[in-house]
């Protein structure tokens, strides 16, 4: 039955995360944007303790690719576990509303954890998630992108060569979110170029492993509170037990990486919506609350002002993106294939957040451009949401292949 009613837990989570974003994140958002590369140590510790005390994390713990566990669970309870993905989408929208850069600094399983959940064996999930959900702040990073490729993840050039019980990794990974502070890195490497996609495997490399080196930090347009690192692997020896999914040939490698995105794209979309909403709320507060502008929804256009209609458009776009996102997350919670819907949500939210944050500055005038306010920061922060986790173009490619029923070869 179609329903948009939040459970009490969802309502609580939304309120709690919103207050946290407003009271803890907003006051320090500008500081950590200006002081790029300075670790928000106190924020990390405080946030970690807070979420831990609540037993809540942004792990995409129900990520797809875990059908075995799910069906078993289904038999036991005949209903999905708590709707972690939808709950996560609701909560992370609020958190990102506080500050998208700091959001990415929040410790937890992160993208690395999502990959482990999507592609790992039960034993690996248990072992690594214990680390990532441990008593001290920890972080799981995803090391996929390389200098030679971005969207085309099948072009992995980092090599993994078998040597007894170990694999020796060599290569350079860039754009590793949280790569400066990660406890675990999920590194994607190829067992041999001639094996194609099936030769691409994911290895969990623990911090401190000899040969793993954080080479440098990127200087970015936005989300400056979160560091993005270049990570170099030089003869880095990783035990075969850390090969996600195990050594068996048929186990998921590349496919596992892609499945990670089914779970993370709705989350990224939700963050983008949070940013769009922060810009919308900011201009709404000024025009409507402080200066008495009325938004007369549904009034004929000839009787309405420009700003009024722009605010309505922003709200409609945010609402459209949010509904797509909730649906994608809900599908995942109910073990429904959501590849297309996750990409739709991400594509829409990535577009909307750019449009809304740009427009908000225009509405606000010269003040909107000033670093006195956060509007200009949100516009800078927004841009990456149409880039990372698959660019807007890649999302459209995924959607297009799904609706056309085309293979990679049929639609390049």
């Amino acid at each position, binding site marked *: 039955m179609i329903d948009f009613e939040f459970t009490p837990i969802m309502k609580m989570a939304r309120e709690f995360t919103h207050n946290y974003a407003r009271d803890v994140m907003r006051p320090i958002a500008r500081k950590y944007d200006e002081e790029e590369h300075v670790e928000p140590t106190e924020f990390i510790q405080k946030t970690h303790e807070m979420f831990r005390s609540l037993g809540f994390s942004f792990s995409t713990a129900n990520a797809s690719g875990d059908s075995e566990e799910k069906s078993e669970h289904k038999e036991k309870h005949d209903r999905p576990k708590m709707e972690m993905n939808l709950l996560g989408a609701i909560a992370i929208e609020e958190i990102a509303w506080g500050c998208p850069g700091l959001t990415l600094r929040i410790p937890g399983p992160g993208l690395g954890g999502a990959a482990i959940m999507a592609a790992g064996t039960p034993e690996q999930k248990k072992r690594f998630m214990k680390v990532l959900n441990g008593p001290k702040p920890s972080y799981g990073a995803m090391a996929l992108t390389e200098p030679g490729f971005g969207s085309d993840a099948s072009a992995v050039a980092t090599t993994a060569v078998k040597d007894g019980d170990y694999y020796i990794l060599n290569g350079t990974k860039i754009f590793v979110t949280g790569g400066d502070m990660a406890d675990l890195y999920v590194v994607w490497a190829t067992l041999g170029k001639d094996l194609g996609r099936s030769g691409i495997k994911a290895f969990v490399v623990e911090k401190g492993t000899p040969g793993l080196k954080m080479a440098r930090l990127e200087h970015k347009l936005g989300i400056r509170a979160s560091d993005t690192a270049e990570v170099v692997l030089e003869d880095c020896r990783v035990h075969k037990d850390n090969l996600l999914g195990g050594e068996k040939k048929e186990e998921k490698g590349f496919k596992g990486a892609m499945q990670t995105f089914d779970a993370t794209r709705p989350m990224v979309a939700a963050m983008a919506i949070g940013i769009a909403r922060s810009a919308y709320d900011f201009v709404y507060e000024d025009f409507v609350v402080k200066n008495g502008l009325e938004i007369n929804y*549904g009034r004929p256009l*000839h009787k309405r002002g420009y700003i009024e209609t722009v605010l309505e458009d922003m709200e409609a776009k945010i609402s459209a993106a949010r*509904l*797509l996102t909730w*649906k994608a997350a809900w599908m995942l919670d109910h073990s429904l294939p959501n590849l297309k819907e996750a990409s*739709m949500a991400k594509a829409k939210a990535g577009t909307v957040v750019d449009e809304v944050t740009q427009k908000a500055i225009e509405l606000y005038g010269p003040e909107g451009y000033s670093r006195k306010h956060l509007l200009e920061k949100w516009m800078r922060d927004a841009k990456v949401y149409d880039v990372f986790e698959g660019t807007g173009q890649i999302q459209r*490619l995924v*959607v297009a292949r799904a609706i056309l029923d085309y293979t990679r070869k049929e639609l*390049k």
Partner: protein
Amino acid sequence: MVSFELSEEQALLRDTCRDFALTIMRKQDRPADESGEIPADIIKQGHELGLTTGYIPEAYGGAGGQLSALDSVIVLEELAYGNLSMTVNILAPSLMNVPLMLYGTEEQKKKYFTMNKPDQFQGFTAALVEPSVRFDIESLKTTAADDGDDFVLNGEKAFVSIADSALATLVFAKKGSGEGLAGIDGFIVPAGGFTVKEREKNQGLRALKQFTLSLDGSRVARNEVLKLSGGFANLLARARTASIALTAGVCRAAYEYALAYAKERIAFGEPIASRQSVAFTLAEMAMEIDAIRLMAWKSAWMLDKGMDAYKEASLGKRYAADTAMFITRNATQILGGHGFVREHPVEMWYRDARSFAVSEFMAIV
């Protein structure tokens, strides 16, 4: 508990309507558009689905079901996916039945609900829009003057569907002067109670008979007044929610047609769908149709919960209408020259879709 899953009954309703859209409506959509006439048997068959009487109490000859906005948006999308003119015609009785359900007196319900015959299309309709450039819903010009036992209606209404054949028309007018929606009430005017003027000639919706009406001192007895007591905004929310769902249907028709065409049409040795410029446009269309549908669901859900959905419905309607232009224009574009000729239905959907931004009260949930 959030859910995006149709109930079994809703899925069945959807399938029934979709089947009717594809096997009945689509077969006659072009001739109807060209001739300006909807075949009577289509209206009859559509009426026999019982969509405008399902919620009428059994005591008054209805099926005694719930009035569900969610069920209605599902129906509206599917039927509009078939043909918009036919949908508006078939569902026109709801334009009066639904306001009666919500605001009518028992006497009014009894009198008018029993006029709905399950096996025979007996039209009701509603008259809201007025023939004026920059029509303003907040300051209706049609007036209802209190004259003792009766109200006397004066004014003009436009784009009134099936006004020539409707047994009764719900005319929206104001008793007093002043701006705003709050003072609007409904006045039930039987056939012959006004002058039906010329048929509207529209860009789209050509199969649908719409008329301008002239109310020149039409008398409406006090017990024929549908007192809305400020409820007009709620009715408008219900009509705008319907509009979002209709938009999703027309857009989906155009999108599916363009998608199938793009897979078949060969250019430079490959289907044009294998080019990103075409494929991405289709992806964008698919994404927006999903968004429009979800907005219709959300708004309908709010209505069913008894929440104020005016804002949700209004901004959703505007978003959907804007996006419908993007979707249907691109559908014609994907067909190239074939999108411009009347041999294909896409240009018809493009014209039909233009109506959403400028119409009010075309259908109701």
